[in-house]
């Protein structure tokens, strides 16, 4: 697999679209290209961010945040008691 082919596969890899039989070749090439491969894969994760940012933000109920923060504080208190 040359580096251009690796790049094509990396973009599929980060969105989980590589088929099982393609994964082995991809992992071999990933080892072969070392740091350059890891850097490129990290850059490809920017695609995730872009897909999310392309969506129109949705409004959440304010009760959700209240429930979330209550759970977090309760967990903090529990771990504080445990100490």
């Amino acid at each position, binding site marked *: 697999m040359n580096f251009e082919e690796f*790049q*094509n596969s990396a*973009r*599929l890899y980060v*969105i*989980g*679209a590589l*088929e099982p039989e393609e994964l082995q070749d991809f992992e071999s090439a990933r080892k072969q290209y070392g740091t350059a491969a890891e850097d490129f894969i*990290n*850059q*490809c*994760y*920017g*695609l*995730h*961010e*872009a*897909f*999310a*940012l*392309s*969506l*129109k*933000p*949705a*409004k*959440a*109920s304010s009760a*959700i*945040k209240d*429930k*979330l*923060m209550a*759970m*977090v*504080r309760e*967990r*903090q208190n529990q771990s504080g008691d445990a100490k």
Partner: protein
Amino acid sequence: MLAIQAGDADALSQLYDRYNGIVKALILRIIHDETSADDLLQEVFMEIWNQAKNFSAEKGKPLGWMVTLTRRRSIDALRKRQAYARAEERLQAEPEQQPLAWVQNVTEQDIHASDTRVLIAKVINSLPPAQQQVIDLAFFQGMSQREIASHTNIPLGTVKTRLELGLKKIYDGLKELKDEL
């Protein structure tokens, strides 16, 4: 994120205020169910709190990490609840909006409110519809190449080519955008 890793609940509160709209939009885009989306939103932020120690700034930005986590969790939820078929029906019932219009009902006000979103959406929407469709199914529905081929009756090789070409165009487009953003 550093403050959240240190156990600062106020930092989580700020993160929620900043990103809940994006995270919920992504959840909704995957599961197509408003009530479940709110529950999942809460679960995702709880997971962010619990898993914050696994975030590494060297590997990317907080939003990227959150989106990866949200997507995985939403696709899991979709499959666990066996809502896949129902979501598929809804998708098919929305031919005017899906899967091409990733930014829906954009108004002038929205454009001023979010230049970044519009610029990114422009890159994505500049793709041929066939490429948008396969990327949409892979990213937002978590489908494999084989599942996409079966779902769309498109040959597997064509699915792969469309995915590769489409993702490369988006990747290159985003690189160009970085200077503008």
